[in-house]
């Protein structure tokens, strides 16, 4: 019905125009706003993990500083370069989608996928080392402090509640006597590390899936990718994945201090 109304008024409607939209501008803007709304949910999704990280790092600064040395800064830096470059190639893919150049789109999306795989492979090496070092949290976790590492001085327990009784006496209720030891706090660091980089890697995998699908659609000249919007939306997603890593890298790998 809607199609008939549009045609009666002499419009050629773009074959990509969906039935609920009036024109392509409305559709394009809707898709971009929709994608951004989804990315806002992703910001809050990862953001909560960043909050957990911040709280625990604030509470255990010395532990985090010492333990993070077990992460490989070089591999982390290389991965950062890999993702930044993949963001560039994805932006180029979007450019060529807007210029309607199918070949170049395929090339740039293909390169982006290769970079994504590189990222995962390097991450795989990092995780494998963690596995061998018994640093994967869980029943096999074991953190052994190296020789020469200065002992962490624990503050003596302080009373949490100081109450004034009706007879005028002050009574102190001591802190709970369960004190996690260094190994447990190290495990906390690695728990956060694996959760956050793991969730990020999961998003990278999904990104590969999306880009792979676009690649094959371009290869088989599927009509949906005559329209630049699918590639642009994938690009927005991929840039977001890059931004998460931009924050993950310094927080985990570059904790400052001697």
């Amino acid at each position, binding site marked *: *019905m*809607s*199609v*008939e*109304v549009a045609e009666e008024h002499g419009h050629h409607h773009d*074959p*990509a*125009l*969906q*039935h*609920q*939209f*009036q024109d392509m501008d*409305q559709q394009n*803007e*809707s898709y971009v*706003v*929709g994608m951004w*709304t*989804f990315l*806002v*949910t*992703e910001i*809050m*999704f*990862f*953001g*909560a*993990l960043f*909050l*957990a990280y911040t*709280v*625990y790092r604030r*509470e*255990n600064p010395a532990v985090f500083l010492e333990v993070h040395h077990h992460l490989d800064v070089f591999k982390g830096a290389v991965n950062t370069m890999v993702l930044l470059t993949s963001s560039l190639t994805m932006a180029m893919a979007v450019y060529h989608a807007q210029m309607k150049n199918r070949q170049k789109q395929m090339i740039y999306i293909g390169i982006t996928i290769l970079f994504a795989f590189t990222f995962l492979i390097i991450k795989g090496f990092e995780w494998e080392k963690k596995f061998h070092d018994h640093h994967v*949290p*869980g*029943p096999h976790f074991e953190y052994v402090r190296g020789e020469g590492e200065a002992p962490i001085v624990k503050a003596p327990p302080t009373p*949490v509640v100081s109450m004034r009784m009706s007879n005028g006496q002050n009574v102190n209720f001591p802190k*709970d006597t*369960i004190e*996690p030891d260094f190994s*447990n*706090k190290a*495990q*906390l660091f690695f*728990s*956060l590390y694996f*959760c956050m980089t793991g969730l990020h890697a999961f998003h990278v995998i999904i990104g590969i899936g999306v880009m792979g699908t676009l690649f094959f659609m371009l290869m088989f000249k599927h009509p*949906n990718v005559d329209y630049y919007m699918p590639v642009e939306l994938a690009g927005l997603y991929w840039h977001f994945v890059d931004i998460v890593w931009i924050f993950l890298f310094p927080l985990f790998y570059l904790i400052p201090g001697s």
Partner: protein
Amino acid sequence: MSATALPPAGLPASAGETKSTYLNWSYSVKDWLLTIDHKRIAVLYLISISIMFLLGGFAAMAIRVELTSPHGQLMTSEVYNKMFTMHGVLMVFFFLVPSIPATLGNFVIPLMIGAKDLAFPRLNLLSWYLYTIGGLMALAAMIMGGVDTGWTFYTPYSSVYSNTNVSLTLVGIFIAGFSSIATGINFIVTVHKMRAPGMTWFRLPLFIWAMYSTSVVIILGTPVVAITLALVVVERLLHLGIFNPALGGDPILFQHMFWFYSHPAVYIMILPSMGIISEIIACFSRKRVFGYSFIAFSSLAIGVFGFLVWGHHMFVTGQSMYTSMVFSALSFIVAVPSAIKVFNWTATMYKGQVWFTAPMIYALGFIGLFTVGGLTGLYLASLAMDVHLNMTYFVVAHFHFVMVGGATLGYLGGLHFWWPKITGRMYPEGWAKLAAAISFVGFNLTFLPQFIVGYLGMPRRYHYYPAEYQIWHVLSSAGASVLAIGYGIPVIYFLWSLKYGPKAGDNPWGAVGLEWMTSSPPPMENFHEIPVVTWEAYDYDSMTESEAQADRESMPGAGAAVRQEAARDAEEGHPETGHPAGD
């Protein structure tokens, strides 16, 4: 483009019907389960949500029956824990959060703004499937032995020590959360981009403002609880220590992250209901809403301020006192926009021509009960009082007043208001009024005693209690039985009306709004031609005296003839006047 379930153009209605509507163009299962029509999806949601409400209600009945005696006659403590958990999980995540947005919102929003569908129809269908899958997982967990952590899943009990089906339930809730997010994305883009020509923001019905605000809250809050619950699952399965104090974790962090969503969640539950109340009060007072912009902006204010008060659930957890003070002050402030709405609704009715239909009775009930609920919330916002009242039945009564007396009453009012539009049939008005009255009485009898027994010290989530509380519990349980009847009657007459109810005209209430300018039920594409809006929202003032009189005195449906005429005039050829009264 692949259109999964659009009818070919010009398809005639099935034999026996006079016109093609979204309901009758096809009866096949495939065209229902693969529909991308927002109206059909709304109906699918209506069915799923009603089932969840029923199951959550059974859990409530089990609780109330158990609480009639002080020594636990029917169930062990473990089973009781599972019952209140089931009640909370099903009611909060699977009924209250999606109810109005997914059913009435899905159905009405495109109609109200003059659009053919939502912005992303296939995402809409996906959101229903996600809801159903999440719901089935939660139900499976219940059947397979239940969960006993309470709907709040506090750690480390939920993440380390509980031996029940926590993970399965949490995954179900996680998936349902994405259903909610999908709905939120859809509504935001739809309201921004799909309004009919001439429909500026300040000509929008207030229901749209409410739904927009709700959607923003959904987008910003749900992901936080999603990741929090996912972390609990990960902690359970992989024995990490993120919230376990023995391993260096902080259980209070869980509560911060959990309540960061779960407080705004209550605004997700109440805002749509408030939007419905605006619609109903305007229609049945025959007056435009007093203070339109105040109500519109207060919806946004509630959405924003609602994110700043989560700590009031944590006053006695060991949170820093200074933080508690800040949250207490902010919790007082967040009550103000809600109060503004109540004043404006009251002012709307003043010197209006009030028509006591069933939706109006629900709306009036809402105003009274929500006010009580909101005011008791202020007691709880007060830090000193909350130390004593927290974790007692006072809290339980407070949130049931706002959730049941508020949100659910609004939902029922909206269902009655839009039932003729959705189904093309009128429900029996007499029975509806009776049911509204019964549920009002039942509700008060159930929850007023709970304020008293809570104040007297009855803790929540306990089923053993001192004998002196029994009288209050018995009163409450009696009330619950009455309330159940009050809810049961509409189920019967709504189903009855589908086959035997009188056919409704396009506009049986004589209401102003784009959704009333199309047929009941609407055709597949909502409007035969997209209307151009040149009038203000709630333009009841321009209705002539005789029209108003005719609507008041006639049975619902009879006054429709006048309005149908006017609506057809507006549709057919007078875009400049496009005025609902046709003059």
